[in-house]
């Protein structure tokens, strides 16, 4: 028994070393760094250990804005993406023509680089020549300064991200839909079930595990939003920092301002938020 478990650990070693080195160690370091005040990473010096960084953090208007933006972003992107994905997955799963083609189209964003997609969308959002404004003009809506006006920055980011995260959600919903026995749908037809009730009583319960998985994964990745911001505005956080997010803030403080303590403190706060939300979700999932 002893020998066997020893052997098992040896097999796990390579993976464990990588995880310890690149995940566990930085995690602990970041946690410690968040308490070092006036920290110099090169010399390793700091003035004292305390909550100074956290105090500065919550005094920083940029951070509270980032926190607010990220929350709004999460609240809109995750449910919208899941709802739309569910709708599209159900349509794709019904007997439509060119099913394979549509599946490929909807899955493309997942396999394409975010930077490339961001580039395309920054053209779609272009106020003068963008596709979106052209379509809106058909309905008599004036040109919207999607990427250039602070008040439209966050909505633009949300639209872009909903579209982008749908790919993954559609994929897992489709996989889930295929596990629902066809006979249940046949039975519901014989039982004269209205379509909406088929959806709520058979389809949704049938893929409930996938929906809850999509919610957890969606929340986690949405809180970490950064690539989307970076690619949409070419490295900036929107006009006048209007689309700043928590991870963008961390990146900015770390690499541009070299304020390592502040960046670490923000990272710890983000970590705690995600941790608490995940625990709450798992508890809710278990109750069911």
């Amino acid at each position, binding site marked *: 028994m002893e020998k066997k478990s020893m052997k098992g650990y040896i097999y796990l070693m390579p993976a464990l070393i990588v995880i310890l080195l690149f995940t566990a160690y930085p995690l602990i370091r970041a946690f410690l760094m968040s308490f070092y005040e006036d920290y110099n990473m090169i010399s390793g010096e700091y003035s004292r250990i305390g909550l100074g960084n956290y105090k500065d953090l919550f005094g920083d208007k940029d951070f509270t804005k980032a926190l607010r933006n990220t929350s709004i972003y999460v609240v809109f992107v995750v449910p919208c993406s899941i709802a739309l994905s569910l709708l599209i997955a159900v349509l794709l799963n019904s007997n439509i023509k060119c099913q394979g083609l549509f599946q490929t189209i909807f899955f493309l964003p997942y396999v394409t680089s975010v930077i490339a997609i961001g580039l395309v969308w920054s053209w779609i959002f272009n106020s003068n020549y963008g596709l979106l404004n052209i379509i809106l003009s058909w309905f008599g809506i004036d040109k919207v300064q999607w990427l250039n006006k602070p008040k439209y920055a966050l909505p633009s980011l949300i639209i872009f991200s909903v579209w982008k995260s749908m790919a993954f959600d559609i994929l897992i919903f489709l996989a889930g839909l295929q596990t629902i*026995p066809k*006979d*249940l749908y*046949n*039975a*519901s*037809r*014989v*039982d*004269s*079930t*209205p379509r909406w*009730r088929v959806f709520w*009583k*058979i389809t949704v*319960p*049938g893929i409930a595990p996938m929906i809850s998985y999509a919610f957890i994964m969606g929340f986690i990745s949405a809180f970490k939003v950064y690539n989307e911001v970076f690619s949409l505005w070419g490295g900036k956080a929107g006009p006048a920092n209007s689309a700043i997010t928590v991870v963008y803030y961390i990146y900015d403080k770390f690499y541009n301002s070299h304020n390592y303590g502040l960046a670490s403190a923000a990272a710890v706060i983000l970590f705690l938020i995600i941790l608490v939300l995940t625990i709450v979700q798992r508890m809710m999932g278990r109750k069911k």
Partner: protein
Amino acid sequence: MDIRIENLTKAYGDFKAVDNMNLHIADGELVGLLGPSGCGKSTTLFMLAGLSDPTSGSIYFGDKNVTKVAPEDREIGLVFQNYALYPHMTVEENIMFPLINRKVKKAEARERANEMAKLVQLDGLMKRKPKALSGGQQQRVAIARALVKKPEVLLLDEPLSNLDAKLRIETREEIRRIQQEVKITTIFVTHDQEEAMSISDRIAVMKSGIVQQYEVPQTMYLNPDNLFVAQFLGMPQVNTFSVEVKSGNIYCNGALLRSGCELKDGTYTAGIRPESFEIAQDGITVKATHVRMTGRDLLIHFSIGDTEFRILVHSDLSIKEGDEFTIRARKNQIMIFDADEKSLGKF
């Protein structure tokens, strides 16, 4: 309500799953669609349910042509092979579901569901989820759910195939009892000939999409229209072998089986059921090559020439392997088939 199936065909490309089927099912009868897998029996059932569209032909429920009517408007109850109970609902919710969909008030729906549960003996299990039920109980939920909306026709697809042997016999009696109590026209699909014979008023035997014979079980067993039906019904299978007819005498490998038959001279295919032989003083003397005790009967193997026979005799006879004994075919028990395997009668 009676059901008429007229020239019903279902084709997938060149393959005809159901081929020009004609059948009349009388009001209140229990009819078994029997056949090997792929014979078109389930396809027929799904066309009756409206879940599959016929390529041509018509289906009438009473006087109404329902060929183009959607399943929800056909007034049918359907029980699926795997029951297809809604897994996230309790037994009660499952049974109430068709009523709720028809906008029956909740209190009334619950009352009717409870009545149904009593009929199929499910009371006490109403708050359970399907997963917590045995196969037989799930089956009864499926039947209750099919019957609760008081349909005109009940359709069952292989209703017993997922149950173990003992439960299968219990449940088929149960289906018969419920059917008799509700007096509903019922069609069920099965590949088990014993099951079909034991509870059906009539059986339709199918092969390659074509109805071979449509009869009451006893008549069909005793007077099959063709070799396929003769072979499909009965366990152990009917003995089939080649016979020579010469001036009214039937010979099997030179041994005289019967004399004085009105048959033209020639070679025919014959069939004798295992229970249709009797031990007699005069007849053909054979040697038992294999004897098996099955309880009520002895199953004995022997050969006439190079044709092997299996017969059933009463288990109080003392015949052992290697023993010689004399047998003859009981009167009117030799079925003779022509070159097209059609029955020419019994001799």
